[in-house]
């Protein structure tokens, strides 16, 4: 009897892949992907490089991509020529409150839509989703009027209150909660847990990837938001970073180098957060399309 070559067998035993000969120390796909990645990176690198240039260099054509001597003082100049610290603080407060409130409120609403039976649930969910289709320009003025009547103009409240819960977050978490096995919650109900307890002790810990994704997305949106602060805030002490950075760009003068230095500083928290949460972010996106 001849020995069986396991590599030819189907199924688990035969899953041993034959060693593939490698022509390159990396996948050939990288030859395509690396130039594309570079194209994505160029604007970012340009911002960073411009932040180290003199004003004259920024106005040079063709653009100078390597300043030669680095103007490090652009950074302290940008910090001191405007109330950068105040704007950074405002943005941090608004973003933190909005992210946290979205996590809590969207989770509560999403759990209701995913699991609790109530009259008109389907219709309510439909209309909620329909609001996602409405562009912000359409609701800008009505929302402005509401915020004005609440006497929130020129306060951080104007940036926080309309964004406490985001329909996208409700939608995303509803879809995620629906993929969790219902038996886990039924077991917890039999074991004596209340609805809220089930949400906080069973459902949310199992939804960390989705929550992390929502947190990152919401953080990016809120941190980078420009249009809504522009409409509701016109006093400098309530400016957010994105709004404040515009003051480097006046109708008579353009401090592009300082603007870019400010931009780099405002980008740092976002970059750091993304690097820290990248694992969750990618997993969260992947989980949306895969059944556990």
């Amino acid at each position, binding site marked *: 009897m001849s020995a069986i070559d396991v590599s030819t067998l189907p199924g688990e035993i035969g899953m041993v892949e034959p060693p593939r000969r490698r022509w390159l120390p990396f996948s050939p796909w990288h030859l395509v992907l690396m130039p594309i990645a570079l194209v994505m990176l160029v604007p970012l690198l340009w911002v960073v490089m411009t932040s180290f240039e003199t004003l004259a260099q920024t106005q040079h054509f063709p653009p100078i991509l390597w300043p030669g001597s680095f103007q490090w003082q652009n950074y302290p100049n940008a910090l001191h020529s405007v109330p950068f610290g105040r704007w950074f603080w405002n943005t941090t407060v608004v973003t933190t409150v909005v992210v946290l409130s979205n996590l809590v409120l969207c989770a509560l609403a999403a759990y209701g839509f995913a699991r609790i039976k109530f009259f008109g649930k389907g219709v309510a969910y439909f209309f909620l989703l329909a609001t996602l289709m409405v562009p912000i320009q359409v609701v800008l003025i009505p929302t402005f009027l509401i915020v004005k009547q609440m006497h929130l103009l020129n306060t951080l409240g104007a940036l926080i209150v309309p964004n406490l819960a985001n329909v996208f977050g409700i939608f995303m978490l509803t879809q995620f909660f629906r993929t969790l*096995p219902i038996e886990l919650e039924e077991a917890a109900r039999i074991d004596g847990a209340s609805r809220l307890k089930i949400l906080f002790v069973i459902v949310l810990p199992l939804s960390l990837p989705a929550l992390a994704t929502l947190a990152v997305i919401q953080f990016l949106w809120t941190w980078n938001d420009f249009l809504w602060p522009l409409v509701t805030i016109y006093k400098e002490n309530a400016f957010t970073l994105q709004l404040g950075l515009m003051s480097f760009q006046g109708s008579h003068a353009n401090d592009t180098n300082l603007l870019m230095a400010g931009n780099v500083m405002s980008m740092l928290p976002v970059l750091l957060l993304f690097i820290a949460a990248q694992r969750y972010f990618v997993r969260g996106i992947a989980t949306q399309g895969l059944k556990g």
Partner: protein
Amino acid sequence: MTNVEFDGVTKVFPGGAVAVDGLSLTVSDGEFLILVGPSGCGKSTALRMVAGLEKISAGSITVGGTRVNDIPPKDRDIAMVFQNYALYPHMTVEKNLGFALRQRKAPKEEIAQRVSAMAAMLGLEGLLQRRPGQLSGGQRQRVAMGRALVREPQVFLLDEPLSNLDAKLRVQMRAELKKLHHRLGITTIYVTHDQVEAMTLGDRIAVLSAGRLQQIGHPQDVYDHPANVFVAGFIGSPPMNLLRGSVRDGQVSAGDLVFARAGVPDADVIVGIRPEGLRLVGSDDPGPGFELHVDVVEPLGDEVMVHGTVSARDAGVRIEVEEATLLADAIEEDRAAVTVRLAPDVRPAPGSSVHLSVDPEGVHLFDADSGLAIR
């Protein structure tokens, strides 16, 4: 005393599908009752109604004398093991076991003591700090049972708890479950579609079909005296052979098979013969019997299963269990599929014809219209 009583329990789902239809039965204190039936017969729904996970449309369920229709699951003092175990994936085995006790605000020392006692009983001591994802199927199954039993419930519900295990482990866990029940004596309702589990585990089995109770009784009684043609075809693996026949003047006939049965009125009947009720004999055998055309021979080691056809009309009873429909599609109208269980040394050749003798005493008769057994 923890009886569970179903009194005319009905479940109608939104859209009108009737899952359970007027179910009435009593599970006695400490009894191990099996709810068995094919997929979609309402057995799991019935169990979920006891647990409080499904609302009861009509009728009532009482647990230990208390009507529980409107009592939330946590206040019914029942525990349930789910088919997929439903262990909390983010908690360790220890936290899983103690979850129900923590919800009931039991003192920490008591939780620790009961969790470790349960772990010792189920052989989980070394696994307390692991998460469910790090356990084998059998270990998860044990944790699921431990989590249900740790708070010493009045009633223990199991919904196909062994169906996710491989065949060998299933046999082992079956024995463990039986031992556990003997030791604890908790009133248990166990849902399965597996004949072997039904026959081996239960004090009694309740056979359900299309939401209705077909028969309830001791497993052997149900096997020996099926109440109707459904139970006859469902209980037993391979299932009972069912042929169309008739009774005229005390003579039962189904194709070539003719025998006398006193006291049965003239009627069209379904003749039921268990696979082990047939014997291979020579063609000169004078007793009642028929010719079997052999199609497939399955040697199983301790026995041989022979599938073939006989000259008779098939009863047309098709119950979705593995073997029942094996050959049914291919046979001609005047032939009926028959399965025979033979001794391991008997191996008829496929394609040949053999003569089978039937012991008239072991033949079951059912009314062709109502399907009810004719005793």
